[in-house]
């Protein structure tokens, strides 16, 4: 049974239907990348999965439990789903270290010393131990995003959702974040919405191409990039692939 199952998700905003029936599944420690034109509901899909924006119709199953049901305590579920935001959303009033440790202290109720120790380990993992006592306003965009990833990792999630993690970064800072993400491949499940084709091609186990609120095609990167089955996927991947290039 797959770890994550998304079944026929529908979502509308202001009478406009954004997601028109999306279904797919993911296994443990898999990396899947969602690509497609802007505004086709990719970010919305991610937010439906961790219920930041609950879907209008459809189900999401995590580890055999239906998390979209009314009976589920969504806060407990969210401990198992990490989320990395395009705008970072680091807690402005906390240092980098505390940003990473606060989930452990207040949600997982881990004792303060142990929590901060674990937080420091995660910061080391993303290469930011030296910035532990700095505030988000003092960090560069790339550093902020890496703290965001550390914050998500510290919760030991089953899966991390990445919502265009590098779109708000200056080009020279993108590499550092992508390197961290690459290091996670195979260790924790990742569902990534991005335009970074190099990452998609080299790190993803599977690529999902979305357009118009539905999944048009999905498959392993090698196939999708060289021999996609649908016309539209071929067009998009060809054009975007040339633009954003390999790494």
């Amino acid at each position: 049974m797959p770890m994550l199952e998304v079944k026929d998700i529908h979502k509308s905003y202001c009478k406009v239907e954004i997601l028109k029936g999306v279904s797919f599944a993911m296994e443990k420690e898999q990396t899947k990348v969602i690509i497609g034109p802007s505004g086709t509901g990719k970010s919305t899909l991610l937010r439906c999965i961790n219920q930041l924006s609950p879907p209008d119709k459809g189900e999401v199953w995590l580890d055999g439990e239906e998390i979209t049901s009314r009976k589920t305590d969504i806060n407990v579920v969210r401990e198992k789903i990490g989320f990395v935001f395009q705008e970072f959303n680091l807690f402005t009033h906390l240092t980098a270290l505390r940003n990473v440790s606060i989930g452990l202290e207040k949600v997982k109720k881990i004792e303060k010393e142990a929590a901060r120790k674990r937080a420091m380990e995660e910061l080391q993992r993303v290469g930011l131990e030296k910035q532990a006592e700095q505030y988000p306003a003092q960090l560069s965009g790339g550093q902020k995003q890496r703290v965001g990833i550390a914050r998500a990792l510290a919760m030991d999630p089953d899966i991390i959702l990445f919502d265009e993690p590098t779109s708000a970064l200056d080009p020279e800072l993108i590499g550092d974040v992508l390197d961290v993400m690459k290091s996670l491949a195979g260790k924790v499940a990742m569902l990534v919405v991005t335009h970074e084709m190099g990452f998609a091609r080299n790190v993803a186990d599977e690529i999902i191409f979305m357009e118009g609120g539905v999944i048009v095609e999905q498959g392993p990167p090698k196939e999708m990039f060289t021999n996609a089955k649908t016309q539209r996927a071929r067009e998009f991947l060809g054009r975007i692939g040339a633009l954003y290039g390999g790494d």
Partner: protein
Amino acid sequence: MALETLIESLPQLFNGLAVTLGLTALAIILGTILGILLATGRSYGARPLAYLILIYEKILRGIPLLVLFFLIYFGLSQIGINFDAFTSAVIGLGLRSAAYQAQIYRGSINSIPVGQINAAFSLGMSKLKAIRYVILPQMLRLSIPGWSNEFTILLKDTSLAFGIGVIELMRQGRYIQIRDPDLVLPVFLLIAVIYFILVFTANKTLRYVEKKYQMAGLQAEAQR
């Protein structure tokens, strides 16, 4: 000589000053705690609650403080609820301050980016935890300028407790005037100076606090 008798009156004035400070301290505490509850209730509570709070705010900001004092001190005793003058004044000042502070806090809450609460939720924090650990710390820091302003207003408004017989600074001044009519101008000028020093000190202190707790990079200008 007028100066000597003025100096003799100083202990009396200091008594009044103590009462003034007592009123201010108690009322600001009441106003702050209630104000925070009202603001979070209106921003994050259910619709009916938010509406009730709105009505509370409109009423408390729409009637004069003196009338509020009379209602609490005289009016309530008519239906059996007896508060002494000092308590009535604290309640009146506190309830009114809460309404004004709630406005300040809501302004601060609205200037916190929505991404902050989204991040809190995605870590698995409940609404209550998110408010307590992410929103409130930021809201309080952003509110310091507005709160300082409200504090000095409250300090000055304690003078109205005179109207229901509380023996604070103004009332002591009046006693001194009645006893020694020659002292009327000096004593009230002195009282003015005392208030001025209090307000000035409070402002300087709070501005120092504001600088100290400013979140790196976040503009606390929101409330000016």
